């Protein structure tokens, strides 16, 4: 983790605790750099929302301090913090039109009407929601509401953008689309972003760094690779699963995606191009001592580097340039006479490669 003094911390919270009865935050310390896309990952009830609401200034901490851009804002009202918030259930004001919603923050700041109009048009063009300006929120789809909530939050050019489970109320196709959108907006605007989620796929795909929370505490902070490859506790290992998660660059031809990951190439039947994240379930990978010639389009050879007996199931790590986790039954493991150091082939079908 970077030293505190050498980096520009946009957000720094020190030993913050807050008890709301049902939910609580326990001695949380965290630094988030300027421009970072920071993920807070944890199961329901971990205290993720109360953490970002405390950063926004909704609650005053019972103890501890909150710094924004080097200033102590612990006692500053939310309105003076320049932090915007997008909730999971959008919280669009139902009595205002889409235009009224997006312009809300600028009107509070007594911005000129013509300037409000201009800024609203700019952000709605960017998000492709210009045609909705005259509508009321009640009649819109989830994906549309989400974009409007994001537009309302970023049009005021906040220093920090807080996203509370922004994708979890949407169907999976919309999630994929909006996930890409969030990455695009972040790249374009460079706003420091804190994104709360319980999905480790979302965390892996979007996060520059990740903080994992459980029971009101922050239990690990690091890059996605650090958190997923080297979980520092059994809780995190169980929570994130031991999954095959990679990042790569995808090229599409003939309705098939080919993803280059650190020198090896994986084929997927999900069609998506550009920078993508990839996951393959350990159960979907076949292992063999001989070369596998089958309908499985992905086939690699490598060496077993790790073996872990989980009861009826054995988890092995096969290094084929990348470390793949492969799950097989104990009986198969014994029948094939595998051991650490054995050279093996692994294979998995293109339909088993999930791109997100």
């Amino acid at each position: 983790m970077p030293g505190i003094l050498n980096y520009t911390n946009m957000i720094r919270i020190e030993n913050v605790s807050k008890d709301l009865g049902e939910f609580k935050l326990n001695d949380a310390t965290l630094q988030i750099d300027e421009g970072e896309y920071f993920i807070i990952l944890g199961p329901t009830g971990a205290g993720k929302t109360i953490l970002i609401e405390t950063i926004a200034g909704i609650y005053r901490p019972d103890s501890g301090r909150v710094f924004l851009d080097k200033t102590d804002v612990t006692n500053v009202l939310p309105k003076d913090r320049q932090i915007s918030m997008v909730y999971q259930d959008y919280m669009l004001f139902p009595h205002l039109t889409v235009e009224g919603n997006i312009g809300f923050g600028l009107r509070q700041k007594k911005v000129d009407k013509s300037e409000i109009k201009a800024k609203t048009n700019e952000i709605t063009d960017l998000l492709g929601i210009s045609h909705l300006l005259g509508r009321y929120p009640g009649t819109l789809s989830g994906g549309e509401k989400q974009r409007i909530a994001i537009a309302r939050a970023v049009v005021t050019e906040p220093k920090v953008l807080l996203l509370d489970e922004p994708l979890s109320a949407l169907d999976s196709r919309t999630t994929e689309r909006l996930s890409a959108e969030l990455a695009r907006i972040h790249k374009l605007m460079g706003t420091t972003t804190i994104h709360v989620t319980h999905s480790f796929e979302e965390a892996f795909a979007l996060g520059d760094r990740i903080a994992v929370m459980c029971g009101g505490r922050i239990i690990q902070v690091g890059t996605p690779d650090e958190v997923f490859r080297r979980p520092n506790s059994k809780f995190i290992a169980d929570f994130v699963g031991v999954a095959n998660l990679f990042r790569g660059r995808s090229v599409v031809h003939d309705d098939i995606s080919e993803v280059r990951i650190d020198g090896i190439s994986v084929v997927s039947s999900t069609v998506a191009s550009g920078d993508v994240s990839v996951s393959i379930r350990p159960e979907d990978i076949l292992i063999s001592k001989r070369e596998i010639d089958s309908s499985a389009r992905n086939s690699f050879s490598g060496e077993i580097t790790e073996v872990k007996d989980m009861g009826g199931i054995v988890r092995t790590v096969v290094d084929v340039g990348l470390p793949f986790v492969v799950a097989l039954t104990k009986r198969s493991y014994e029948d094939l006479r595998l051991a650490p150091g054995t050279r093996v082939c692994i294979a998995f079908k293109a339909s088993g490669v999930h791109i997100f």
Partner: protein
Amino acid sequence: MLIKESTLKIVTISVTLLLAIFILSLLSGIVTHTSLQSLLASIASKEIRFAIKLSLITSVISTLMCIAVAIPAAYALARYDFFGKTLIQTIVDLPLALPPIVAGVGLLLIFGTTSFGAWLSSSGLKFVFTPYGIIIAQFTVNISFMLLIMRSTFEGISPRYEYVAQTLGCNPVQAFLQTTLPMSKNGLIAGGIITWCKGIGEFGAALMLAGAIRMRTETLPISLYLNMSCGDLDLAMAAATIMIIISVVSLYIFELYARHTQLY
């Protein structure tokens, strides 16, 4: 035989119909007791016009007072936890169960017998046997009902709307005024109309505090009482008819707006 299911249906619907007929006959008895002509003449009389005007003025003022007190009080009860909240909640609900005539006597004692009442009176605020007394009587009897409706309305609106408004540059009061309050429109209208309607009809508490003084504290219900007492049925029926019309219209508007709130 399945015909028995129809028996249950027929019996219960018949009871409902009989009840509706009973209520309708109450009302139509009043409305049709005099001829339309004499009804209109009575309504145009000086006394009834005074009663209408006094009823409208007092009920509108007392409704506005109820709204002014109910909004902050309902907000506090819906949004905050504070010491003794349960006890205070029960106390402010009490007028729901308290007979209006008892509330009227309580007001009479406060304003008529205490030094606080004497001080108010000496500074020009006389409540006993004045139209001011009618207003405060209506307020006392109706405040809990308005409070109940507003509390349930506020409880149905997520506080996160205000949180979002705060992050967008509102202080807490501005956030409330620009999100929760406009979003409570239906509850406010439903509560306001029924409070107003109950204010128009308030009799017991107003009788005790403001008395029944012809052409001075003579609201519509007091006019009905006075004219029934002295046997002037035409004027009595005029007052009653106007109150019936107000009730029907108010209830209709109430049901229109209350359907959109969390009340029932």
